[in-house]
């Protein structure tokens, strides 16, 4: 570091050497100006940021570093600072720019500290190039804007889905009712003039329209689950399972099922959605144990590597694990409609409920032995 004073002849004191080393190696550009606003001292980073060699800057008015359009007002700003000097840290909320030797500008943050010496008031300034920071801020603004517009679009889509579901609820059912109804009336009133083959054809028409009615109902349920806002609360899973099992018993009183329910199982979740999941899982368990003389359905939980894994298991018809990946697809069925009626939407609905809770669902089964469905719910808050 050179100085053009006679004092350069003296050997620098240890504290001065310390100071010089600090300034020279500082990560920010350091510029010290004298009371007249001339650059007295700079460091290596100043050379790097501004593109000058220090000989070119020493003795120059500090305005050389200020963008052209601000140069005329800068001396005035310096004077008012000198009048009431305070330490002004970086990030004081000012939008500042500096100018390189090649004339290009870059955004900066500047800290100012007044230094009193025998010569008067010098100003110690540290200058930081914040080009990178500005770019990051801009990117964040752009990402936020995109997020906001995506959210708006999602809202619009949800509203459309709502309107669509609503109109499906009314408009698709009416013609189905007509198909089923008039076929029935035809069967009733034209019974004598129709042979068994004719009656059979009409019965098939009726069954098809009734099946479509159930498909519509299940699709609507699936859509409702998708749209639903999850409302989390503490849910008594054991009580819920027991209620749903009782409802199943009343739906199919001739079918005796031994239901084993683990007591005291609680979880954090949406009660309505979980009920829909149990309706489907236990409904399936009841359905697929239809042929069993000693039908057995169980709901319980076991811990696996710190996670709570819940299960609904039955000893019914089961399925071939080779088709396990089709299990949760909408409209996918692994059984004959003649043997076991269904729309193929139930498990897709359960999966959606489980996913809404941040959990997973999977199954294990063997043909004619039974099936077990395992699921987790999101990491629960531990309530001691």
């Amino acid at each position, binding site marked *: 570091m050179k100085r053009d004073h006679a004092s350069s002849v003296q050997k620098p004191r240890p504290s001065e050497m310390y100071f010089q080393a600090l300034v020279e190696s500082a990560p920010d550009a350091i510029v010290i100006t004298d009371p007249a606003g001339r650059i007295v001292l700079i460091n290596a980073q100043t050379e790097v940021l501004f593109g000058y060699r220090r000989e070119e800057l020493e003795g120059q008015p500090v305005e050389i570093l200020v963008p052209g359009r601000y140069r005329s007002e800068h001396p005035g700003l310096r004077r008012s600072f000198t009048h009431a000097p305070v330490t002004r840290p970086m990030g004081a909320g000012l939008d500042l720019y500096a100018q390189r030797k090649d004339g290009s500008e870059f955004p900066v943050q500047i800290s100012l500290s007044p230094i009193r010496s025998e010569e008067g008031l010098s100003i110690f300034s540290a200058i930081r190039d914040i080009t990178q920071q500005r770019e990051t801020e801009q990117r964040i603004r752009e990402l936020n804007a995109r997020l906001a517009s995506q959210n708006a679009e999602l809202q619009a889509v949800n509203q459309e889905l709502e309107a669509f579901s*609503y109109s499906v*609820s*009314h*408009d698709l*059912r*009416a*013609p*189905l*009712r*007509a198909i*089923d*109804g*008039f*076929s*029935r*009336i035809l069967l009733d009133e034209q019974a004598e003039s129709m042979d068994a083959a004719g009656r059979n054809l009409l019965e098939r028409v*009726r069954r098809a*329209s*009734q099946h*479509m*009615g159930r498909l519509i109902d299940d699709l609507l349920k699936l859509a409702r689950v998708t749209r639903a806002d999850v409302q989390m609360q503490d849910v008594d899973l054991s009580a819920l399972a027991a209620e749903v099992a009782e409802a199943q018993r009343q739906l199919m009183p001739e079918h005796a099922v031994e239901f084993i329910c683990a007591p005291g199982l609680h979880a954090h979740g949406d009660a309505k959605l979980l009920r829909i999941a149990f309706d489907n899982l236990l409904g399936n368990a009841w359905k697929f144990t239809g042929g069993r003389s000693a039908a057995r359905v169980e709901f319980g939980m076991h811990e696996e590597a710190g996670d709570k894994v819940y299960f609904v298991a039955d000893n019914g018809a089961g399925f071939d694990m080779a088709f396990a990946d089709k299990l949760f697809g909408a409209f996918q069925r692994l059984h004959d409609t003649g043997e076991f009626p269904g729309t193929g939407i139930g498990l897709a609905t359960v999966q959606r409920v489980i996913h809404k809770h941040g959990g997973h669902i999977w199954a294990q089964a063997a043909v004619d032995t039974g099936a077990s469905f395992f699921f987790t719910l999101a990491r629960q808050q531990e309530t001691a």
Partner: protein
Amino acid sequence: MSDKSILLVEDNPDDEALTLHALATHKIGNQVAVARNGVEALDYLFCTGPHSGRDPEDLPAVVLLDLKLPKIDGLEVLRRIRADKHTRLLPVVLLTSSNEEEDRLRGYSLGANSYVRKPVDFDSFVHAAGQLGLYWLLLNQPAKD
């Protein structure tokens, strides 16, 4: 049951035919008046327009009202029935395709007496129509004779 009647408010001609048939199965077919939209229904009940010759005291024992109607929709018809002192206490059964909770809530809030979903399966439909007819025409006691 001979002097009691039903007003069916239904715009869909298929549903109208099926409902009449179902009611007829239970021997109630001959006392059903049909309005095909909300305006007709209100004209009938308030004895205005083409029904200005009707006797205002001659009200049906029950109104079977669909929610989705052209011109004035079902809920608006219900609102106006409840707003008029002649028909304020008239039993209204919402008979409709929708089972959406919002529709049920709105219907009951506006003073519907009952909400029945039209099933797709005709046998169930006949059964429901029979139950409705028998209940409202035979069992239920109206506010006034």
